[in-house]
């Protein structure tokens, strides 16, 4: 198995994420041929389209690119991952882990208890302030 040096792989993936994930003018929402990809960025010029195709498809599988389509000759990307991460309705990673480690029942119960406690404190404070006022 021929793997490229690890540092080189990191640099290539960073370049692909930056080049493909944010470029709305020429990449996102457009259809590109795989053999066009090396000409998009000087750092990609040294790689053959097959290698780039492998890494782009892995990045898409990991969720860095959304709406990835590949017919072997051409590919398209509909959105970068950073759009996805900024969408509303996503909980923070610690809460995801907490859910996995403790289960949804305990996480929701803790949330309700803590929120109830906070409301009680705020109401008590409001009552104290109004009685002094």
């Amino acid at each position, binding site marked *: 198995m021929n793997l490229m040096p*690890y540092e080189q792989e*990191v640099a290539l993936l960073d370049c692909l994420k930056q080049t493909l994930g944010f470029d709305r003018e020429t990449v996102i929402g457009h259809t590109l041929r795989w053999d066009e990809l090396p000409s998009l960025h000087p750092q990609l010029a040294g790689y053959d389209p097959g290698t780039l195709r492998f890494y782009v498809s892995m*990045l898409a599988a990991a969720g860095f690119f959304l709406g990835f389509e590949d017919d072997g000759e051409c590919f398209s990307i509909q959105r970068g991952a950073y759009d996805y991460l900024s969408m509303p309705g*996503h*909980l923070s990673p610690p809460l*995801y882990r907490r859910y*996995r480690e403790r289960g949804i029942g305990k*996480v929701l119960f803790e949330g309700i208890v803590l929120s109830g406690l906070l409301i009680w404190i705020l109401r008590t404070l409001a009552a104290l302030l109004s009685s002094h006022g």
Partner: protein
Amino acid sequence: MPTSNLTQPQKEALLKTTLTALDRKALRGVPHDWATLPQRVARLSAYDPDLLRVAVRFCGSSGLLVGYSENEQQFRFEELSTLGVYLAYGAAGRVVDTGSMLVYKQLFRMFK
């Protein structure tokens, strides 16, 4: 590459399974042998070691694993990154999102 023959959904499943299997406290911050990884982590036992090596290395090089380092025999990592956690538990997270939103709405009505 051993993963070249996989379809896109198979690649997604491979990465998700790898990340979920690695996200154990006992596995964080300690070196793991490439050769014995499928035996050591039960959920990965069905995978070919070469395929796993490509997948784990990709998780490290793409930033899905934080504090990743490797040599010919071993690799280690510190924890899953933000996107790694989303990828590993994305579907479960949506259940939490829905439940949390209902609770928040109810609490908002109570407070109002």
